[in-house]
Structures are given as C-alpha cells and as structure tokens.
C-alpha cells in the first residue's frame, strides 16, 4: 500500500519537474497563432479594423477580442482564409470598418505640395520621401494604398490612383464556358 503511494508520489514529482522544466526551456516565443493570422492579413497597415496595424489586429483575433471580418483590404477572400485557419464559419465583411476598394497607390501632386512632412509622419510603411519645406513624393512600389496620408495633408494634394492592369501583371482569366440556352 505504502509502496504504491510512494511510487505514485515519486512519479508525480518526476513528471511535474519534467513538465516544469520543459515549460521554461521549450517556451514558444510570441503567439504562433497570431503570426499565422498576420501572414493572411494583407499588411496594408491601414488601421481600418480599429487596431494600429495588421499585427495588433492579428493578436486581437488570436485572443478572441476582435472578429475576423474587420479587414476591408483583405476582402471576402481574406475572411474566408481566416475562417478556415480558425475553424469558424466565414461571415460577410463588417460594413462599419469600410468596404473593399480596388487596389490603388497614393500620388502626390508635386505642384501643390508645401512640404509640411505631415504625410511622412502618417505613412505606416515609410513610403514617402521628403523633408521639411521640400517636395514630397511617394515610392509607388512600397505604397500599400492605406490612405492614411490623405487626412493629415493640409492642402489636399494627395490622390489615390487605381492600379490598372498592365502586361507584366496581366492574368489569364478563368475559362468561361458559354452556356447554351435550352428551351
């Protein structure tokens, strides 16, 4: 009887120590789920979801504090992917956070720009070049189209230009099968 209790206690201690040790030594840095969610998010960093950037939103989703349908740039496709990852039902985008728009980049009207640097401070990806009282310009390749530079501009010299399809970015369309009308 005593031996049995002793064995059980010993076992509990040994397993407890092993678990405690592994909890410290094999601790996973960061939140792997948040990282997986972050990989799906479009990285526009626009803040339309109500969080300051894609990563905070990903973390909020991982903690269950935010819904998966708050990212308009990700679109329905993004919601679907998030739903698949999290094993929940996909739902339509929440209109409160904006509607998806065609992909565009910001363009500064360099004639009107007064060089106030406010847009540079607002850009979440440092895609605007310029200095105080110097003309600013946008690095189109690095612009995510988040529109965060629009409100701070005191002279409204920034416009969003839709990206048109060009030859290197052209995609073959999904083959459409012509339907025959049957009476």
């Amino acid at each position: 009887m005593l031996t049995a209790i002793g064995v059980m206690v010993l076992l509990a201690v040994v397993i407890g120590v092993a678990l405690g040790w592994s909890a410290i030594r094999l601790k996973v840095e960061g939140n792997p789920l948040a990282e997986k969610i972050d990989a799906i998010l479009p990285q526009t960093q626009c803040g339309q979801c109500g969080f300051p950037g894609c990563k905070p939103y990903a973390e909020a989703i991982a903690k269950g504090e935010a819904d998966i349908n708050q990212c308009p740039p990700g679109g329905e496709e993004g919601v679907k992917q998030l739903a698949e990852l999290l094993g929940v039902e996909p739902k339509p985008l929440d209109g409160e956070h904006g509607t998806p728009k065609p992909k565009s980049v910001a363009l500064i009207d360099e004639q009107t720009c007064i060089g106030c640097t406010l847009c540079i401070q607002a850009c979440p990806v440092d895609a605007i070049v310029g200095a105080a009282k110097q003309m600013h310009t946008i690095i189109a390749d690095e612009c995510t189209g988040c529109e965060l530079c629009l409100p701070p501009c005191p002279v409204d010299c920034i416009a969003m230009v839709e990206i048109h399809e060009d030859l290197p970015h052209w995609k073959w369309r999904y083959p459409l099968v012509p339907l025959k009308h049957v009476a």
Partner: protein
Amino acid sequence: MTRELFRFKGGVHPPDHKAESNGRPIHPAPIPRQLVIPLRQHIGNPAKPVVKVGETVRTGQLIAAADGTISAAVHASSSGTVVAIEPRTLPHASGLPDLCIVIDTDGRDEWGERTPLDYRAMPAADLRMKLRDMGLAGLGGAVFPSAVKLDAGPAQVCPTLILNGGECEPWITCDDVLMRHHADDILHGVAIMRHLLGSTLVLVGIEDNKPEALAAMREAVARQDFAVEVVAVPSLYPGGGAKQMIETLTGKQVPSGKLSTDIGIQVFNVGTAHALARAVHHGEPMIERLVTVTGHVLRPQNFRVRIGTPMQALIDLAGDREGATGVLMGGPMMGIPMPGTQVPVIKATNCLLVQSRALFPAPPAALPCIRCTRCADACPAELQPQELFRFAKAGDFGRAQEYHLFDCIECGCCTYVCPSHIPLVEYYRYGKSEIWAREREKRAADLARERHEFRQFRLEREKVEKAEKLAAKAAASRALAAQDPAKRAEQAADVPAATQPAAPAADTGEVDAKKAIIAAALARSQAKKAEAAPKNTEQLSPEQQQAIDEIEARRAKIRELARKPLESETE
C-alpha cells in the same frame, strides 16, 4: 550511321497541314509605311528606348538598349523617322497596350554600319554582350534572350548541342523552308554556338515529315569542317518541344525545376542559329524573321518579314479571304488568339494562322470531366492533367503546384484528346498566372510588414534617443546649478522685474536650483511683457479711448469665458 532514338511518353498525331505553305519559296514582304516595334518582345526586362521622337534612324540602328542580363536590344527594322514612343496594342492574348517605338519608314531602307564580328578572336563574355545588344532571342517561340543561353555557366562547357528543327506544330513551316533554303547559314550559326558552349556533340533533330529539309541539311553538313549529326525523328506532336527533343535524341529527361544545361544539353531553334550567323558574319541585328501565313488565305506561304510589320499586311499579301473568324499567332495547338490584325509581327511570331469556320469549327460546349484519363495518356510532361484541372478549377493552387503544374508546357495534347472538350490548357494558364499573382502579392505584403516593423522600431528608438538626450541635458544643467547656484541667481537678478525672487542661499540643493531656473524664466517673460506695453497711448481722442475700452472689455470677457470649464466638461 544510325542513332538509337527514344520515345517520350504521350503525344498526339494531329493532321499536319504542312503542304499548304511549304511548297512556295520564301517571299520577302515589302517594308510597310509604318513599323510598330514593341520593346517587350522577349522574356525578361523590356528594352529601354535610346531614341527620341523625331529622330531619323537607319535600318539596323539600335533604338532600345537591353536592360539587365536577361534582356535583348531592339533595332529599327528599316530606315525612317521615329514618330512616337507610346503604348500600342501588342500581339498578346491580353490585348493590353505596352510601350512601342513607331517608325514612319522612308522606303529607302538605308542600312547603318554593319560590322561582322570575328567571334573566334573575341572573349566569350564580350561576344555574348554583343549578341545581347544585337537583339538575339530564341525564335522557336519562347523568345528567351540567346546570349543568356549561350553561357555554359560555371561548367564552362556544355557537351551536347541540339539544334531543334522539329517544328511539330501543325500548319507551321517557317523552320522547314528555312532549312531547305538556308541550311549553310544555319550551320554557320551552329559553329558559333559550338564555339561558345564548347560542345563536342552536335545533333540536328528534324521530324521525318520534312524530307526536303533533312536532305538540304545533310548536304550542307557535308560542306562543313565539323561533325554534325542530322537525325530524322518520328513525327509526333510535341516532338519539337525542347524537353521532348532532348528525350527523343538522348533518352535523357530534364528533371523538374532544372534546366537542360544542368544535364549538359543546350537546345536552340534552327531560326535562332540562322539569326546568329547573320548577326556575327554580316553584322545584322535581329530585325527580320520568317513567318508562315497560312490557314484561311488564298496563297499560304512563308514571308521574310521585318519586325514591326502589321499582321494585316501579311494577310493581304497571302490573299485575304472572306469568312475569316480570327487570327492565331502560332499554330492550332499552342497559338494565341490575336486582339486584332493590326498588331505588329514580333520576334516570337512564327506563324499567322487565319481561322475560318470551315477550318476551325467552334469547339462544342464543354461537358463535365468523366475522368477517363485520356489526357494523362497524351501528356508528354507525364503529368496528371485531370487532377490539375480539378485543382485549378477549384482554386486549390497549392495542390496544383504539388502536382507539378509548372512542368506543364501548355502543348495542348490534353485538350486535343479530351472527349468532353474541356479547354484544359486554359485552366492551367489561369492557374499558373493566379499563382504568380499571389506570389507577387505575398512579396508585397512581406515588404510592407518588414517596413512597418522597421518603422515601429525606428519610432521607438527615436523616443529612447530623445529621452536620453533630455536626461543628459537635465543632468548637465543640474551639475551646473550645483556647481554655481549663486551665479545662476545673479543671472536671474539681472532681469529688471517686480517679481524678483530672493536669491537662493548658497547651500540649497537641487530643488532650489530648479526654483531658480523657473524664477529666471518667469522674470524674463515678465520683462518681455513689460516691453510689449501699448505704445502711442497719449493724447487719445474720446472716441479712440471709448473704442479701446470696448475692446478691452471684450478681451476681459473672452478671458473670463476661457477660464470657465466647457459645458460639456461640466456635465
């Protein structure tokens, strides 16, 4: 001497329709009034224009330079004036416009300087650069810059050189007639390739449905001083595909995701060899090529065409007929429908196939896949087309890639044999471009993430730096105050003001030093205020005095209002 041949898996035997166009001699097409020369004719970076609008150019003059290693230059196909550098519709399935140089020809066709190269005396790298600047690109269809392919890589040697005269696609005969009429030039090109690649074995693969071409090449080989083996390969579509030609001639398969040079084999089209010989021995850049115009035309034949000639001009030369329903660039298996007949001929244009309802009836409506796997039997790339179709249709691109979607050469055998008439290749093209687009998006997202994270880090760093700077400054001023508080107080006393505080005692600590600083600042501001006292206030008229009083009253009222908390705050 007979060589053991191997049979690649799959393939189909479509009716070859070669006889329509291969009987007539090569006819040089007249130079059109206007040439539209696209800058994106090859794989890789588009060429960069080096001429301006209004400039006069000569035939063969460089008008756009190669940009980077994988690129090829573009030349004026005839002499004339550059009238525009603007986007024009390209001979591309998308029908999208892209940058072109438009030349109004003067009809004189005056050549610029043509300097033949002594390729044996030149270092290989220089020769390759020269060829890139001559605009050399593969004429077989993929238009890969030839200079890149002529680099044997770190091995410095590519033992086997295969010249591809397969031309397996039905209707097309431009390689056939080129071999019949210019076999010697082709072999001169082969000599240069051999020199650059260090090849010891040179094979020319020609399908056995071209006996005249085989005979002409064999005759020409007898006149050369190096060994070339001309091999008749069985006609089987797509036997003229590079990988299939390699397998037929050598029995080797190019592993998935590798290049043929990795197994010591390089393949060139016969047209490329001919163009290479013209470039090296005659100094002529790539400004013309042979184009088969066939199908629904009166006189199907081959033309020697300047790059940039509108396709309609060629169709007119071959005899336009009523009832044409469209034009394919290429053959019926892999050809791409053209957005119109005014688009120019480019380096990739091997054939213009004019369609009609009688020759190419519209395919019947596609039926569901019955998984008969006839496509798998026909696939020369040994893929599972029915599975690829399923994944591409469902948008499951990850699985499609697992099933080696990118090994598909889009030869069209699967579509040809499909009893349900499913346009399978269209699904694969859709799948491939969708995967590329997603990869591009992913790269863009990764870049944005990286830049955003760096920005966060930068802002944090700047904050810390600012705090450190302030702390250092405060420490310095504290030290100064502790050193000589009396001096500071003296400074403050210098300012003439009523609110002059008592000078702090010498033994006061940090608090007093701060107090002294505050007092000094206060004193300074008071002094400034005193200086800014209203001027010209003497000898005022009663009206002026009244106006001043009113203004002062308003000011006082506003001050009073400002002191009161806002209504919203009190609630």
